[in-house]
């Protein structure tokens, strides 16, 4: 299959060889960096470097179509989506690297090195013949060759890939989309609910009719009763708030009623409003 994809003309073998070795070092270094860096964004960027190197190699092998697909689809679209997702999740998110099983990392590292050595030795010793000469039956462009394979030999797997895409879309819907169970309340519903609750206007904002500006003092309603909902539920509302006093000119305002006074060390601490 890649024989077809790679069918093309190699112009200058020395230049190609040189560029290959440069790119190979860059690609392997970037791939290693991808798994070693901690930040997900850096991983994605390293992956982009690997993909661009691969695209260049495809182009050098005489597969310009594959090279451009690699750049446009993978580097351009898929990887940018990766970046979007990472940005959405949070750019600072880093995986926990606590070893839950003791010595796991060491064992995994040794096993990985072992597999690497085994594969490197195996592939290094394998006698890989020279590349197949460009096949004349697909003409100069490899686009026709790919089309031929997709629509003749591999037409069934090509079509079945559709099932994979549908599964992916469906799965994303199942995992991420929350269906609204109750209908969304309209403005009319909200108005009806408010009328039915008996309190048509909202609670007075803190400070109106208030004697104190402490956050745990409930606001007072026009009739002088405390509005319990004006205190955050995490606080313990101080009860026994008195109705507003009428302070006549010349009179000294009566500071700090008997209730709750023991909770305040300084008498003037919570009564700024009354003093002013």
């Amino acid at each position, binding site marked *: *299959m*890649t*024989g077809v994809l790679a069918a093309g003309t190699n112009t200058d073998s020395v230049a190609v060889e040189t560029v290959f070795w440069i790119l190979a070092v860059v690609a392997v270094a970037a791939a290693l960096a991808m798994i070693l860096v901690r930040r997900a964004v850096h991983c994605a960027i390293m992956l982009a470097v690997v993909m661009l190197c691969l695209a260049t190699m495809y182009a050098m092998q005489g597969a310009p179509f594959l090279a451009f697909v690699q750049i446009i689809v993978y580097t351009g679209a898929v990887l940018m989506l990766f970046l979007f997702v990472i940005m959405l999740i949070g750019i600072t998110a880093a995986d926990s690297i606590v070893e839950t099983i003791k010595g796991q990392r060491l064992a995994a590292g040794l096993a990985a090195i072992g597999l690497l050595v085994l*594969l490197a030795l*195996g*592939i290094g*010793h*394998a*006698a*890989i013949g020279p590349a*197949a000469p460009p096949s*004349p*039956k697909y*003409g100069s462009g490899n686009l*026709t060759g790919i*089309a*031929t*394979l997709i*629509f*003749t*030999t*591999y*037409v*069934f*797997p090509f079509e*079945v*890939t559709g*099932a*994979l895409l*549908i*599964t*992916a879309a*469906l*799965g994303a*819907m*199942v*995992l*991420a*989309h*929350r*269906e609204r*169970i*109750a209908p969304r309340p309209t403005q009319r519903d909200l108005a009806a609910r408010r009328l039915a609750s008996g309190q048509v206007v909202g609670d007075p904002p803190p400070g109106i009719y208030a004697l104190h500006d402490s956050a745990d003092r409930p606001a007072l309603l026009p009739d002088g009763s405390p509005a319990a909902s004006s205190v955050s539920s995490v606080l313990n509302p101080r009860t026994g708030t008195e109705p507003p006093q009428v302070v006549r000119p010349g009179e000294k305002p009566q500071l700090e009623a008997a209730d709750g006074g023991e909770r305040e060390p300084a008498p003037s601490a919570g009564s700024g409003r009354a003093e002013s």
Partner: protein
Amino acid sequence: MTGTAAPAALAAHATLAASAPGAISAPPIEYSQLGPMLVVFGAAIVGVLVEAFAPRPARRGTQLALSLGGLAAAFVWTVVIAASRQVFANGSPGHTAIGGAVGVDRPTLFIQGTIVVLAFISVLLIGDTRFSPFVAQAAAPPGATAEQEGLAAGAMHTEIFPLTLFAVGGMMLFPAANDLLTMFVALEVLSLPLYLLCGLARRRRLLSHEAAMKYFLLGAFSSAFFLFGIAMLYGFSGSVSLAAIASTAASNTSNSTLLFAGIALTGLGLLFKIGAVPFHSWKPDVYQGAPTPVTALMASCTVVSAFGALLRVFYVAFGNLTWDWRPALWVIAVLTMVVGAVIAITQTDVKRLLAYSSIAHAGFVLTGVLAVSTAGLSSALFYLVAYGFTTVGAFAVITLVRDPGGEADHLSRWAGLGRRSPVVAGIFAFFLLAFAGIPLTSGFTGKFAVFQAAIASGETALVIVGVLSSAIAAFFYVRVIVLMFFSDPVPDGPEVVLPNVFSGTAVGVGAAVTLLLGIAPQPVLSLASHAANQLFVG
């Protein structure tokens, strides 16, 4: 795909040079022989459309009918192809369809038929919404208010049905795939929906999420290894077709390093799906965390499908290299049987217990695979049928034994169950005896068949290990039976709910087939040996 099919278009791509440049002559597409798979995939796609357009109250019934109907039609179609004079004319072993991508032969049809029937039973369990094991709103975080609202409103993800059908379609293609590229696509098609379904348990959702995550990550790794192996084999033979790999392996003996690396890596990918021992660590966690009907689907259909693919790859592509891969697979089979049986002893969770039992059974089937003969193939096929029905039935029983918070998974909760619900406990004990391979159950016939085939191929040592690990396995099965029948019932123990049509059918069919294959296995045995009479087409 459009256009008229040339008569000799199978070889069309080879003669493209003769035609006009740029012209592609479409290959013939044998719709009638791809029918079972196309029906299942078609039903899945219609199911997606139902999700999009049908009103919510109508969805569950429609999806259930569609899934069951699609699977039933696929089974009938499979039988029609298997009986077809045209496909198997003059003792032909079958042929490859649609450009050589899919093999239509008797072993494949046998496996596909088995998968479809087992999937039918699993879909019955999935459709049993009385104590739905599936989450109401997967997007709601565990413990959130939205989750409670979803539960209160009786919400249900009916997308589960098309996802199951996609998985089943992939499972049917997996053993039929005649080139490694198609096989890889099928592997992904069958795996992706299963990763999703594993994470949709209603209760103990974090455990379920963990199971899905583990399965996904490890499955992705194993797929990558499989793909790496395909690349090696392509480098060796210049083709991904199984037959071409086999013929290159027969002619080219100089460059075997790539071939062996390819065998090892593709084998790894396949053995992971089976759950053979160095690659088994996902199985207990995933089986425990997944919703029980999905566990039933994975334990039966996925195992059958993966064994079908393993048999096809090792018999067709590496059939000439038996001496090379047999020792490695021998070690894996021994490890699988012994480790599966020994670790199962220490388990305290019923689903984990059955997961380790499934690992041990994978080892027993590998014994049949290692025989590398028609007898080995037919015994492996028979074993898969027997094990598949027993395991579906056993998981169906697990859905019936319930605590207030869900299924009673912990083994200690099962103590004394036999005194309180003798029928359900008796049926479960029967399934366990079948797993253990006691005579008069399908498990005995299956084990007898694979061991016989292995001895006939000179694998006596393997059979001795198999018998010994059967004995170890029998110990923990019997321990559960003793726990159920001879220990005092736990106070406020689990409630055994009466099975309804869905779970009742699953338990009943599982028990009936287990019994029938134990008492009168001859029809299925001869069907399996008839199917295996001619090996896979290449």
